[in-house]
């Protein structure tokens, strides 16, 4: 019987548990805090933040599909300066561990974001969004090939102070995910997040991302592929996780942590509830060990 510690280690960080929010699904944090204390989560991952404010795309941005959502939000966010001035301090006040997701239009912008975040006190880690499913239309750096992903990661990594870890968020593309994971880890990422929403389209044909339970088996497969090929890699699993059992299957497949996205949009208490259930698992394992 393996023993799950009450806390986990991810990218050199000690977190209170393995349940994180997924980027873009926790609002600014304030809205989510109404349904559960943010300091009970492993970390709060922000929506992807860019150098300059982005208003987001046209309506409709999000539609329901069987057991899923398709979204093309256009990554709305207030820009890094406004985020650092207003949203980050509030999150830190709540005792949340904050992982800042970033997205940029060019490698230069990635480097600039890293420099500004490197000077901001309280940030636990940077998550580089390398898999925006509507990148082609939203004007963000389009990651097609593993070397694109590695380029973005090294641009960020180079300009960060030591000790501020980089997570690389990858597309759950079963054919490319291992190769991409290997190159971003070589480029300085401490862990990989597998994965983002799948490339899809809205009924009017606009590029979009498919998320939710519909993509869970695909994401899980990607996690197992990366674990098998790169047994030393730290993996954060994401994609359709809606219950503690879903989370357990990703952890059993080799993920050290999981992210909850779409489930929060259906039930804002889901991340808190999954975190609490997994904490009970961990406590039971400790009891067994003590006995």
């Amino acid at each position: 019987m393996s023993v799950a510690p009450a806390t986990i280690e991810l990218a050199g960080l000690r977190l209170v548990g393995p349940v994180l929010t997924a980027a873009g699904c926790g609002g600014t944090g304030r809205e989510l805090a109404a349904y559960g204390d943010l300091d009970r989560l492993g970390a709060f991952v922000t929506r992807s933040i860019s150098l300059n404010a982005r208003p987001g795309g046209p309506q409709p941005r999000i539609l329901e599909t069987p057991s899923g959502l398709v979204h093309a939000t256009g990554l709305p966010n207030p820009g890094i300066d406004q985020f650092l001035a207003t949203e980050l301090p509030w999150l830190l006040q709540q005792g949340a561990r904050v992982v800042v997701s970033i997205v940029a239009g060019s490698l230069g912008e990635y480097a600039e974001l890293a420099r500004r975040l490197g000077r901001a006190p309280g940030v636990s880690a940077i998550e580089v969004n390398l898999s925006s499913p509507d990148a082609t239309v939203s004007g963000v750096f389009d990651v097609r090939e593993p070397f694109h992903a590695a380029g973005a990661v090294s641009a960020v990594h180079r300009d960060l102070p030591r000790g501020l870890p980089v997570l690389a968020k990858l597309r759950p593309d079963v054919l490319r995910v291992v190769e991409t994971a290997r190159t971003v880890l070589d480029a300085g990422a401490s862990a990989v997040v597998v994965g983002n929403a799948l490339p899809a389209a809205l009924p009017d044909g606009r590029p979009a991302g498919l998320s939710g339970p519909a993509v869970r088996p695909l994401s899980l497969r990607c996690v197992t592929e990366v674990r098998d090929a790169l047994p030393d890699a730290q993996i954060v699993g994401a994609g359709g996780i809606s219950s503690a059992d879903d989370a357990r299957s990703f952890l059993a497949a080799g993920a050290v942590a999981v992210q909850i996205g779409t489930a929060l949009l259906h039930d804002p208490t889901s991340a808190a509830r999954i975190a609490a259930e997994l904490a009970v698992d961990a406590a039971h394992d400790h009891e067994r060990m003590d006995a």
Partner: protein
Amino acid sequence: MTAAPIAQAAGRLAPLHVRGELLAGRRVGAFHHLTLAAPGVPERFRPGTFVALSVGETHLARRAFWIHQVKPMGGHGATIQIVVEPVGVGTRWLTGLPTGTGLDVTGPLGRAFALPKEAVSCVLIGEEYAAAPLFPLAERLRERGCRVSMIVAGRDEAHLLSTLEAKRSARSVTVVTRDGSIGQKGSVADVVGDVLRREEAAVVYGAGTVSSLHAVAAAAEEHGAWSQTAIEQPLTCATGLCHGCAVPVVGEDGAPRLARACADGPVFRGDRVRWDEVGK
């Protein structure tokens, strides 16, 4: 703008996510009035707030409904009443449920109607089921000594909320239907200007379609009244998490920006909304 600035929206209580229960359902015209137990939600209600319901596990988006009434029901304490028009998969599912069914309820959500600081003349304009939040609003305004008039509008009589109830809530009621089946024949835009002038309205409250609310905001502007408009936009999470329901507004600094219909609204100052761009 005339005097009578409206009070800043006071600090709102955090919404709850609870397991509720359908206690009763009653068909009235084209609508179903559903009574729900939702522990803790009624106590936090303010007019203009709404609830989000889940319609099964595979439909991930929430469905939003105005809270129409809060009232005690034997054995359940306070309950909430919503008015549902079956128009699609979720609303048909809801209106076909047997009483006693459990439902995930989140609420009260959103920013409520702001109330005037003084006893002034108020005109409340509600279209079809969207008139639901105006009845409890009328009650609060009357408690403050405000003079309350209502415009109740819809496509036909079956799509109006009780005009009788409106007459109990308001000093004067104007009924307007598209087909003329009851009241005047026409639209909100046709009557709103006259009513505002007649009532010397200082504050105007509207809930309905975007085109009607645009007309309400424009009439208020012309008349020099404050307007509070409750906007419905397609929502996904309804809780402010997903940033899907953008409403184009003008910020306090005069700069254009996108607000979230669910969390920054659904009630907006009519003069702050960029009406021509809503839904685009």
